[in-house]
């Protein structure tokens, strides 16, 4: 379980997260929605320890991410997929995927690379396994990014606007993989602007506005009268649908 209580984070004078309480249980797919600048990405970056939190507590399976000793255990349990892929440009797709298992989990290289190939095969990249990131399309890069996170066999997948840098066609190729993952019961925290897709795969929707969690509802409730009763949510949804 990922448990967030009273989380506060500010950058200088700007308060980005202002008292967030959220729990993500094993097997859930929680989509985090909200307009740009509402603190969605920062929330992910706090969970995986890339940002130091100012107040509150985040634990991943009981490991406190603000304690350096426990952070490495917490990180072993969660895998992050980034908006801009963040692949290692000097390594092939296979090497990108196999790096962390080899270095962190001490899996023998041959085995790690075989597993990496299998993962890449499962996302349709069998032929591109030995290509460098610069030789791949955006959608292909993000699929490598997903494989890289999955290679660590994480209990939780943290997805930070993973389709924001992709065109609609590439977006759908990445989303179909995420849908398949959701079906297998992978726990996901899914920060996104893809409202309709979030609705189709999520068990819950968390809605952030100006650093506060103003809604945390089961998916269908969020999109029905309960969610619409919240003015900010209604406004957000009507705007997104018009686009």
């Amino acid at each position, binding site marked *: 379980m990922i448990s967030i209580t009273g989380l506060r984070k500010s950058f200088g004078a700007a308060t980005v997260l202002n008292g967030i309480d959220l729990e993500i249980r094993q097997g859930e797919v929680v989509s985090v929605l909200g307009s740009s600048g509402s603190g969605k990405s920062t929330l992910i970056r706090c969970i995986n320890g890339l940002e130091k939190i100012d107040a509150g507590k985040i634990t991943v399976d009981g490991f406190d991410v603000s304690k350096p000793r426990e952070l490495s255990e917490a990180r072993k349990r969660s895998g992050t997929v980034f908006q801009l892929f963040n692949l*290692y440009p000097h390594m092939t797709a296979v090497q990108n995927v196999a790096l962390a298992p080899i270095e962190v989990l001490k899996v023998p290289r041959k085995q790690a690379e075989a597993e990496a190939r299998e993962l890449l095969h499962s996302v349709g990249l069998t032929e591109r396994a030995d290509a460098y990131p610069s*030789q791949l399309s955006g959608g292909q890069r993000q699929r490598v990014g997903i494989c890289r996170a999955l290679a660590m066999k994480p209990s939780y997948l943290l997805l930070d606007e993973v389709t924001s840098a992709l065109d609609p066609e590439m977006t759908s190729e990445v989303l179909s993989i995420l849908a398949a993952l959701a079906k297998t019961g992978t726990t996901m925290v899914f920060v996104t602007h893809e409202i309709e897709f979030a609705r189709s795969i999520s068990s819950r929707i968390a809605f952030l506005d100006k650093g506060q969690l103003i809604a945390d509802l089961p998916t269908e409730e969020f999109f029905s009268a309960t969610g619409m009763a919240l003015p900010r949510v209604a406004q957000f949804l009507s705007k997104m649908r018009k686009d």
Partner: protein
Amino acid sequence: MRYGDFTPFDIVLLLQGLGVSLALFVSTTLIGLVIGTAWAVIRFYRVPVLMQAVTFVAELLKNSPVLVQLFLVFFGLPAFLKINVTPTEAALITLSGNSAAFIYVIAVSAIESVGRDQIEAARVFGLTRWQILRRVIAPQATAFAIGPLTGLLVNQLQVTSLISVIGVMDLTKVGNILNLRTLKPFLVWTAVGLLYYLTAKLVTYAGARFEKRLRAHTAWKGL
């Protein structure tokens, strides 16, 4: 044959001088690489005190003439510490330190050239600082550094000629001797210059080849 004529042995003498220059160049480059990189790693880890000390020493070495440093080591150190420093030792110490200072600067900027986003990705997957340095930063930083490093080394090769001043029998010193004997400065210094030129070209060529190999992964082929 007059005393002032060229003899076939002069070629051997020139090649011997070239050998001394090359040996000093290669050994001080290697020592400089080890020390300069180690300094950069100290900075990468932000080791307190040591980091400030490194910056201070590197600044001193970068901002004073090599010839002055050479005189300080060759004349100053023996007088101050009451020890014996041979010309070769003085040359080795001075040139190594000077190369280290400039290689440190190149290494630091090369490390900083690697995108933050990749480092964040590696951190998130639990790699230690050392693992990130070795597997993610070092390969890319090396590729980045080869260009400036080649430029530096070509310059350091020419700088080795300064050590002739304290009596090391390098290429320039041999040229000096031949010049005094034959009194044909145009011929002698053309030959000496050509030998430096060819060696520098070799360094540039090796650097370019190495860089090409390290950059095999990028589609960028230059303008």
